[in-house]
């Protein structure tokens, strides 16, 4: 089980800020593929990966990143701080 977190419009599209997910995926991209098949709102949120960023265990990474040992994966749009 890993915690999956959503922020900003990803959170709005999926409709919740975090959930626990049972996954067989070995990479972030694999997890995304699993989520996409769940429901339309997931497919919509993950329709364009180039507009998304991902963090594994609170470190920014990319969609090829392995999930081995990961406790927390977060999906969000490009940051707009400052």
């Amino acid at each position, binding site marked *: 089980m890993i915690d999956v977190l959503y922020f900003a419009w990803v959170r709005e599209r999926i409709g919740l800020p975090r959930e626990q997910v049972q996954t067989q995926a070995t990479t972030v991209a694999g997890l995304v593929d699993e989520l996409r098949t769940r429901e339309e709102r997931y497919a919509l949120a993950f329709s364009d990966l180039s507009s998304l960023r991902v963090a594994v265990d609170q*470190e920014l990474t990319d969609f090829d990143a392995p999930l081995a040992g990961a406790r927390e994966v977060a999906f*969000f749009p*490009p*940051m*707009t*701080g*400052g």
Partner: protein
Amino acid sequence: MRIVVQEQPFDLGAEVSAFAAGRHDLGAVVTFTGVVRDDPAKPLAQMMIEHYPGMTEKALEKIATEAQARWPLGDVLVIHRFGVLHPGEQIMMVATAARHRKDAFEAAEYLMDYLKSRAPFWKMEKGAAGEGWVAARSADEDALKRW
């Protein structure tokens, strides 16, 4: 190094005074302050800043640590707010202190460039015309290529 992520306002004047005080070996102090801007053509009622508790502090510490590794800085301060803000309010500030002005300026610009695109904050604007998430500017991503 001091990293602060908080909902409440900060006292810019007091922070700058405290940051600059007491260190006699540092000749140059640079600050940047980000303010919620109001466009008269598209009036803003409020700005809501979402962040990723836990990761935010780590990301800011990583950026500040990297700045300290690249420039001989005496001190670094980063303060960033989240939650609901109104036009004219201060969103965030960074401060750098060094012996020479070039180092203090470059480090402050570096902090801002990375904070913009690598710290997990997202801005939503609410106004008369509705609400919407602020889009990342490609100029902000491009700014990182400088370093």
